[in-house]
């Protein structure tokens, strides 16, 4: 018995010792202090774009940047409070699955600016929202995919059927249908952000049903495309270096315009409860098209580039559709 008690006491003491190892807040030196709070590791596509933009701002010397990754949703509120208590000027994060809690915390710390990824409107006075509005480049990649498909079947594997995923899929489908009305889509979701083996299996199932282009919303889909020797369309990040000869085109998200705007607003003390979503549009440099002209069919990239001009000039507007996309086969 005493051995057991001793072991338990030892474990308790170890836990206590660990709590004293939490690092103290960083020192003040006039720079804007920014904290990032992410529910996934910083390698995850979506979050990696925010992380990159904030790191760039830090390298320029504009901000002092700290972050917490892999924060579980149940812990999110605590981490927000902790950064707010430390006197951060700007807190950047994602409120998608913690909307209520995040909005409550933001209201309690009116002196801190919160810039949160969210599907809902901004909240007065200090919570601004952003999202990956890259439906425009997604539409352009759809045009290229529509030209490239020979079986007229395109497979699409998504994480969760939420607005930020759905709208890109819809834009992609609209783009493909514009150039090729014959094209049909296979759509499935894996209900996970981070299960590449599962995404890969979903993609294999689509190839078995005749898909010859895969829309790679998740990690794992491009791997399936490479293994089966077909082409894939990238999303949010450029993965063409990892899959040479597989990625036809990608819709890239640039978070820099959004972040720079927010930093400027905090610096000038003009930060307000705005919707920063527009800074992800192509006209603000928040989205771009990357295409492999060697792989894409002749003329497809030119057609997409021409469409891009129309989007930039305002002559063409890509529809935003947040409903769950369905298979059309």
């Amino acid at each position, binding site marked *: 018995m005493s*051995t*057991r008690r001793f*072991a338990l006491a030892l474990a308790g003491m170890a836990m206590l010792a660990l709590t004293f190892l939490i690092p103290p807040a960083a020192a003040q030196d006039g720079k804007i202090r920014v904290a990032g709070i992410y529910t*996934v*590791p910083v*390698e995850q596509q979506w979050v*990696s774009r925010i992380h*990159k933009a904030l790191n760039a701002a830090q390298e320029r010397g504009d901000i002092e940047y700290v972050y917490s990754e*892999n924060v579980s949703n149940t812990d999110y509120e605590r981490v927000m409070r902790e950064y707010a208590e430390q006197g951060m000027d700007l807190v950047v994060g994602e409120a998608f699955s913690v909307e209520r809690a995040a909005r409550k915390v933001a209201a309690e710390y009116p002196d801190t600016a919160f810039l949160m990824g969210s599907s809902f409107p901004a909240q007065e006075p200090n919570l601004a929202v952003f999202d990956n509005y890259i439906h425009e480049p997604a539409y352009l990649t759809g045009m290229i995919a529509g030209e490239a498909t020979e079986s007229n079947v395109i*497979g699409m594997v998504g994480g969760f*059927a939420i607005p930020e995923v759905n709208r890109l899929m819809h834009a992609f489908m609209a783009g493909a249908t514009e150039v090729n009305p014959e094209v049909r889509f*296979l*759509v*499935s*979701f*894996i*209900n*996970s*952000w*981070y*299960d*590449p*083996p*599962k995404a*890969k*299996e*979903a993609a*294999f*199932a*689509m190839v*078995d*049903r005749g898909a010859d282009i895969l829309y790679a919303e998740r*990690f*794992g889909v491009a*791997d399936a495309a490479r293994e089966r020797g077909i082409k894939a369309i990238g999303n949010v*990040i450029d*993965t063409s270096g*990892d899959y040479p000869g597989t990625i036809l085109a990608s819709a890239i998200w640039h978070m820099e315009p959004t972040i720079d705007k927010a930093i400027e607003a905090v610096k000038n003390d003009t930060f307000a409860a705005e919707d920063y979503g527009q800074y992800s549009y192509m006209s603000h440099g928040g989205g771009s098209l990357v295409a492999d002209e060697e792989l894409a069919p002749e003329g497809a990239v030119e057609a997409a580039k021409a469409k891009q001009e129309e989007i930039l000039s305002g002559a063409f507007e890509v529809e935003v559709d947040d409903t*769950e996309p*369905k*298979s*059309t*086969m």
Partner: protein
Amino acid sequence: MEILEILISANFWAAAIRIATPLIFGVLGALVCERAGVLNLGIEGIFVAGAMAGWLAVYLGLPLWAGVAIAAIVGGAFGLIHAGLTVPLGLSQHVSGIGVTMLATSLSYFVYRTALPNVSSPPRIVPFQPVDVPVLSDIPFLGPVLFSQTPLTWLAFAMVLVVAWLLYRTPLGLALRAVGDNPASVDAQGMSVTSLRIGAVVAGSALMGIGGAFLTMSAFDAFFFGMVNGRGWICIALTVFASWRPGKALLGAILFGAFDAFQVRLQTVIGSALPSQIFLMLPYVLSILALVLVARRADYPRALLQPWFQGQR
């Protein structure tokens, strides 16, 4: 009609076996632990640790099979923690198991981040490739289903035979089954209940570690936090489904793999009629149903969850 076509296609069954492979390792591991009387809820975390350790070893330059061995060793080490807490100390197996899962998960991520602090996308390794066995892989249907898999899948099938042989054909297996049913009788034979149980938990956990390694070294080529995604918990349920028998364990794992492979295909066939969540729920609902049907006759080890102290009644 199309649904029938899915069920008879070789690609479907090949996918089912691919999905089943990590579960085969996991359910065998859980079975070995539970046959000795120790429930190992550390399985989910041990999967993560195995996935990370095996992958990291290969990323740092070791050959693939050495990575598998390291995954097994790391799995066994976490098993030793669980065994230490539950066998000689006799603590709650549930609490200790959950604790091991949390420890292994967090520690894996800690090691990953410490080893690779500034990567923009998770680094890749060259994973196990599907191997075509000459002659055998040319057999219609069975060829693509069974003989175009990666070596780890064959290892999983081999482990089913090894575990079954050990349990039912060796004195060690007899002692191991006895220690989970009636530890006092094993003690009366002059054997050490404590060492048998610790050994079983370590060996079972090593199998779980290899199951995790399959995810990063065969099914995919990089480690992602959260990629285990509940596969360990599924194995705990499958152990009951299998009634603690290796043959049925194999069957249960393949059945679950088939449900999952069926689900992704069904989404693309009649996906426009129903919300995607219904399909994603399917393998779990079918597993619960299967469990309900067989669990009434489940022949659980009599001393499961019961700590044993020498001289105590």
